[in-house]
């Protein structure tokens, strides 16, 4: 009976995700980026990217209990890999204006020559997976020495790694590959994604990033619910007991670290896709802290919590509180107070309040479906007794 119920829940979740994707697709058609509601699209795009980044961080920090702060570094690797391999050949020289580009190979372009529009989509998918793979490979190399460290030491080591990566990508000697401290642009970006059916052009610029995030988060959910996920949680709860149960600590920590970094790489690539540029300077440790904040706000150890936390964070900082910077907010005009930077003050206060009142984050360790389940269960129990 238990199994049929969990099967039913899985179907319900699947249908809910499909409905959500359909809604995004429709929104993508009816809202133009220049509309008043255009901000909604940006929030959805960025929110999806950060949701993926937060969930992948949660897999490591929340589920496996490894406190790592190298997320921005892995996202940078993903963003650059994706950008470098999708810049069209004819824009290559314009982008690398000070250097002689070393990589002259655009995966989507090469494939589109043989397969047309489908080839472009496939090429972008391959570039995304490659972005994740590069981040994962680096994670494996870094993980060999670093994963022996515990808690704060691990955090410091990974933070250092991320900063080194950022410095390395800005180094002029690597310019032919990374374009030095200049930004990468003109690669396959979300604002250009269109679907042409019978002459009608359908915009996909919000749908594609959301789809990437949805598929990736679904994969992470499957991992968390598998035997591996159970082993991760066991390691988090009690390393010694987990070891006594025959769980290979080094192996499982590495799996968690590499998987988390893979999806961090994918989220970095999607971020580049959404922002239309990739620049090492954007991937500072402040970005890691922002993502950590989303994880903590949502609830460490809750995937839906991370998603909700990310969307709220992005919506508040990019949209709802914008007026606080520009002199007018909720109909109140106060240019003396509401100027640049005030938004961040208010935002920090809100975060402090949230953290004070929701010690465990918004969701704690629960998932969204748990909340519905509990409501149904309580009256049934009362009836019993």
């Amino acid at each position, binding site marked *: 009976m238990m199994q049929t119920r969990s099967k039913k829940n899985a179907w319900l979740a699947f249908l809910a995700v499909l409905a959500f994707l359909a809604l995004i697709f429709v929104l993508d058609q009816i809202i133009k980026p220049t509309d008043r509601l255009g901000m909604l699209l940006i929030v959805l795009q960025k929110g999806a990217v950060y949701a993926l980044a937060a969930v992948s961080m949660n897999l490591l920090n929340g589920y496996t209990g490894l406190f790592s702060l190298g997320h921005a570094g892995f996202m940078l690797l993903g963003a650059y890999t994706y950008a470098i391999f999708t810049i069209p050949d004819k824009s290559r020289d314009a982008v690398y204006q000070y250097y002689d580009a070393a990589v002259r190979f655009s995966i989507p372009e090469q494939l589109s020559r043989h397969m047309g529009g489908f080839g472009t989509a496939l090429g972008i998918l391959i570039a995304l997976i490659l972005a994740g793979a590069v981040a994962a490979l680096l994670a494996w190399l870094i993980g060999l020495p670093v994963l022996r460290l515990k808690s704060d030491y691990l955090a410091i080591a990974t933070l250092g790694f991320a900063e080194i990566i950022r410095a390395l990508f800005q180094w002029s000697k690597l310019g032919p590959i990374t374009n030095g401290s200049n930004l990468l642009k003109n690669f396959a970006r979300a604002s250009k994604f269109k679907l042409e059916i019978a002459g009608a052009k359908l915009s996909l610029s919000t749908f594609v990033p959301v789809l990437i995030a949805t598929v990736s988060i679904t994969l992470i959910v499957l991992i968390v619910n598998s*035997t591996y996920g*159970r*082993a991760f*949680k*066991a390691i*988090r*709860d*009690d390393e*010694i*007991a*987990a*070891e*006594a*149960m*025959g*769980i*290979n600590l080094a192996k499982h920590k590495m799996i968690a670290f590499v998987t988390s970094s893979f999806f961090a790489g994918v989220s970095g690539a999607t971020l580049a896709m959404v922002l239309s540029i990739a620049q090492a300077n954007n991937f500072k440790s402040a970005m890691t802290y922002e993502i950590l904040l989303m994880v903590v706000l949502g609830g460490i*150890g809750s995937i839906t919590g991370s998603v909700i936390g990310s969307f709220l964070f992005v919506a508040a900082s990019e949209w709802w509180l914008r007026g606080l910077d520009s002199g007018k907010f909720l109909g109140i005009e106060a240019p003396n107070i509401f100027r640049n930077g005030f938004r961040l003050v208010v935002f920090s206060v809100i975060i402090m309040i949230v953290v004070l009142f929701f010690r465990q984050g918004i969701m704690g*360790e629960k998932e969204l479906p748990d909340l519905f389940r509990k409501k149904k269960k309580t009256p049934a129990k009362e009836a019993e007794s």
Partner: protein
Amino acid sequence: MLKIENLHVSYGGIRALRGISMEVPEGKIVTLIGANGAGKSTTLRTISGLVKADSGSITYDGQELLGQPIYKILEKGIAMVPEGRRVFTNLTVLENLKIGAYLRNDKAQIEKDLDWVYDLFPRLKERSWQAGGTLSGGEQQMLAVARALMCKPKLIMMDEPSLGLAPLVVKDIFEIIRQINAQGVTVLLIEQNANMALKIADFAYVLETGSIGLSGTGRELLVNEDVKKAYLGS
């Protein structure tokens, strides 16, 4: 089935075990008693592979265990209930039990063993969806034992299962140890509660600061004057 010979172990500069030898015959309950710091837990942890030995040998059915990784030792059928229970507090009871069967792949048999364990501990079945950390001390101890049983051991080693439990609960735990043993699982029990341990043990060793002092059947030691004075408090 388990034979320890002249085992030396040191821990951060301290020689915890100084050449102990003991034997655990198949199907019996053997207990190791001794004061705090005598090296009881070290002995268990060395057998299970969590601690490296300096010298000596531990053989199981004639095979050397020293130097083997933990999972190999578990696969041979030696499971441990660690000191202080150490259940996974944020995992449900069911998840805890499934972690116990982590090294096994035979899904059908695992389901059967789950039923078997739930029969032994009906209380755990009632609470299978509850987080391990919300159980009472006695229930957590039962969960720790049940978790170890889920890897279908031939030998189960328990490190102070009565620690911090109410006398009535301790009685329950010892009754369960007897039941498990009656079902053919060999038990190596470490206890400070010498009285209870000696009563159910077929054979007992007394560990004194790293070496075996006395040994004999449980009944012999129960009436031994030295043991009485030092461990039974009468």
